[in-house]
């Protein structure tokens, strides 16, 4: 087996840009230098035409009208714009927003800011498998509720929320439905109109496009949704997002969307097989392996696994060839383990022991062989070093040990 190859299994963090995307972008750095907002010369027209084309490509991927796409710098900006923009725009209707504890920080911290601005936010718990409890969601809606913000698929576990059911509840109560679909767009079918999503945030670099460009879908008809701009300037993007358009980035994101539309179903099928083999073999090779989150409703390329009595960051240090991510506290400055896994009721010990593998379209069969070998060896190495693994093997009830918490 190749023992020098570096294997990227952290595609939920960011994906490698598809070479076809890079190719499509290149002319827009030098050969087509125009500002898409320059309406009175051929340079501007060429840039605008490229942006319009990309808008169509992206609109086709998510089956919306191209006028409903607002370009931003990425999903974080799109989340901020959607949440704060709706909060300000609909202030007369109400000030209450409902979201989940497992949302991305871009949503949670925008909500925290909204609370400081005078808004009220309900952060719903999720069930043990990571799914929203629809009854709790419906019960949380009140007269002042203006928006429900629930992510399409979770970044850490890959768990996919019941979008259609959530959309029906929002429809029934006349509440707007916003979704952070960063992890889902370009990987699985994400048609906001089909499930009643009115605003949807996503980004280029999670679907083999470039970093630094994203989009917000804003529903234009039934209902016509508007958001208050969060930065002031030239009134680009129909006044919702000022700032010179990132033409090469937008062209790249458009190309990535076009490729995704053609290839994502095939990729998903292949990657789910690789993912399943990874999970199955690791569970056979090692004891005390736990898969986190609902396994029937999750992204095809993601698995979040806990290796009991092994600390995640330490485990990652044993991996000389694979790049993955962990919910371990030691990977974060706060020294708190993943709040997403904690919200699943996982318990700190399993949260500390978790590794997220997120596969991508450039991964091969051999990559998975190498990953299996690295993880198996790494877990064995770490368990050999682990006093709690030794205690567990000796039959000590770890619950009964008096630990000295620090």
């Amino acid at each position: 087996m190749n023992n020098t190859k570096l294997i990227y299994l952290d595609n939920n963090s960011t994906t490698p840009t598809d070479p076809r995307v890079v190719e499509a972008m290149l002319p827009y750095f030098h050969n087509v230098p125009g500002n898409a907002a320059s309406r009175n010369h051929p340079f501007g027209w060429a840039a605008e035409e490229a942006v319009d084309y990309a808008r169509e490509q992206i609109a086709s991927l998510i089956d919306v009208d191209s006028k409903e796409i607002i370009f931003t710098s990425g999903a974080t900006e799109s989340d901020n714009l959607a949440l704060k923009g709706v909060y300000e725009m609909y202030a007369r209707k109400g000030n209450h927003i409902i979201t989940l504890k497992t949302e991305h920080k871009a949503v949670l911290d925008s909500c925290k800011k909204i609370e400081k601005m005078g808004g009220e936010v309900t952060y719903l718990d999720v069930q043990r498998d990571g799914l929203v409890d629809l009854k709790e969601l419906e019960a949380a809606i009140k007269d002042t509720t203006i928006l429900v913000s629930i992510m399409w698929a979770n970044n850490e576990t890959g768990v996919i929320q019941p979008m259609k059911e959530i959309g029906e509840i929002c429809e029934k109560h006349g509440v707007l439905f916003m979704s952070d679909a960063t992890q889902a767009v370009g990987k699985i079918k994400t048609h906001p109109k089909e499930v009643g999503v009115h605003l949807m945030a996503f980004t280029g670099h999670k679907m083999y496009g470039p970093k630094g460009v994203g989009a917000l879908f804003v529903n234009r008809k039934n209902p016509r949704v508007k958001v208050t701009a969060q930065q002031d300037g030239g009134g680009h993007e129909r006044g919702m997002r000022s700032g010179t358009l990132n033409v090469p980035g937008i062209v790249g994101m458009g190309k990535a969307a076009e490729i995704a539309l053609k290839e994502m179903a095939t990729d998903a099928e292949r990657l789910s097989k690789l993912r399943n083999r990874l999970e199955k073999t690791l569970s056979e090779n090692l004891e005390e392996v736990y898969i986190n989150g609902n396994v029937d409703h999750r992204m095809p390329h993601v698995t979040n696994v806990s290796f009991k009595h092994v600390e995640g960051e330490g485990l990652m240090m044993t991996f000389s060839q694979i790049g993955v991510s962990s919910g371990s506290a030691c990977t974060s400055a706060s020294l708190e383990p993943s709040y997403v896994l904690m919200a699943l009721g996982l318990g700190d010990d399993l949260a500390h022991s978790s590794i997220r593998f997120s596969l991508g379209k450039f991964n091969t069969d051999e990559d998975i062989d190498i990953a299996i070998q690295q993880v198996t060896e790494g877990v064995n190495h770490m368990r050999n070093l682990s006093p709690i693994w030794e205690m567990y093997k000796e039959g000590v009830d770890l619950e009964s040990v008096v630990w000295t918490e620090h």
Partner: protein
Amino acid sequence: MAYSEKVLDHFKNPKNVGTLDKASKNVGTGLVGAPECGDVMRLQIQVNEVSGIIEDAKFKTFGCGSAIASSSLATEWLKGKSIDEAGSIDNMDIVEELALPPVKIHCSVLAEDAIKGAIEDYKTKNKTV
């Protein structure tokens, strides 16, 4: 965040991994940390009854690379020291030796606590009445 060479070396080739007989009178065991906190360190010393010198030290650690390196280093330093000398090992010595970044200082504190715990256990077992 990149790890220092010394942390990597202790992590890849940890010194003195293992278990001493905790029931033995001349073995002191320190078990500190908690699984919920992501760090558990067990450090053991074996003391020569005649000379009072630590003749062996072993550890096992559940934790990140820095925690493992801190305990591995601690066992190396403990060997050949008297109980009193061992008690004077300061966590900042470990921080310095391993070039630990600020977020990893708690790993060295844990190692110091484990050393103190092992000494304490040994002393309790060998109290002269």
